[in-house]
């Protein structure tokens, strides 16, 4: 099953993004960064949907910077 991961430069931003998206009713969870997409030791956001345009728009509106988005089979 394909999942979408949003990566951040710091877990401080993961927590902020999770807060913003959950407040908007978007299903997401902070999880361990999958080793096959990054060597970072912290957390990232996993979204249950592949269509993340709305999520990215919300984060942009709140000025939450992201590193990148990855879609992987997990």
């Amino acid at each position: 099953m394909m999942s979408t991961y949003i990566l951040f430069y710091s877990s401080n931003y993961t927590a902020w993004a999770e807060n913003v998206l959950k407040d908007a009713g978007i299903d997401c969870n902070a999880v361990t960064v999958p080793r096959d997409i990054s060597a970072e030791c912290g957390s990232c956001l996993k979204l249950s949907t592949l269509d993340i345009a709305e999520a990215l728009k919300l984060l942009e509106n709140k000025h939450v910077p992201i590193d990148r988005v990855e879609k992987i089979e997990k």
Partner: protein
Amino acid sequence: MFVSSLEHESNVIYFDNAASTFPKPLSVIEAMSECMIGYAANPGRSGHKLSIKAGQILFDTRMKLAKYFGTENPMRVIFDMNATSVLNLAIKGFAYKGLHVITTSLEHNSTIRPLMRLQDDGIIEVDILQGNRNGVISIDELEDARRGDTKLLVINHASNVTGATQNLLKVCRWCRKNDIVSIVDASQSAGSCDIDINKEHIDILCLTGHKSMLGPMGVGAMIINDSFDYRRIKPLKEGGTGSLSDAITQPTFLPDIFESGTPNVPAIAALGKAIDFIGEHGNDIGNKKDGLKRYFISRAREIKGLKVYTTKDKRAVVSFVIKNIPCSTITQILSEEYNIMSRQGLHCSPLTHKRIGTFPSGTVRFSFSYFNELWQVEKAIEALKEIKCR
């Protein structure tokens, strides 16, 4: 309402709240133990559930502080140990060779000592404004002290000796108009009155969690205005942040640039609950504390030879001396014989005592909290009367 470690000494009267508030709201204590028992993992360093939970709690308190002090961006809230640590960060991180700094006679040593260190090292020059008889400065004084190289004002919002309170709105607005950065020490005022960094044009607000914020010791915060370029402050420490771990240089983004090392998550969790408590009780806290101070002042007139040093500002701090009785004698008798905890001496504010004429002997200080009661003030008055008559 609260759990006290001194419950077995129900007579204890604690009037040293300007040093650290005691006791704390029950919710604050519970939040600390919940963290220590349930999720005291290292936030931001791992991806497991407990680390993520700790990171969320950290964020919650960051967000609450941001909102409480009038900014929308939680990443502009920087955690550190206490007010001293964030004041050192703000002052030393901003300072550069040739900088002229204006400060006041109401400063605590947490601001004046870093400034004097920088001046002694030949990096900055400092002018200390004396203010009126209470140490409150005016715009005229600021104008007289301003030079071409004046680019920083360091100002204590409220005196920890007398409660004298500076007019932040006027002063920080003047700073903005003159391209001068304002660093505000809100150690005594944060939590006891509304402070909005945007409305009051404050560039950098520094505070501690364990005084009027009603949180535990071990956490302080620096709040940076959105309009201030944080890169003008150099971090004083570098190290692990849990971010950009592949890089051997410090991250350059907020808050990580200033937050190396494991944060005090239990204290930060508890501070979050303390902010909730303050929000729930609103003006009741300030009004009650002010009422206790006013009552003390009115009753203190009954004691011949007792001189009070305070102002009409709504700060629950009052200093006093009793003629011919050393301050240390008064506080020792109060503690040993009456179970009343107070503080004598110079209160880490020698400049203030020089300004009000109580240097070097100092004063006795009573500082009240929301958890003090009128009967406690009455008992203190009776105790002082007895001490006076010995």
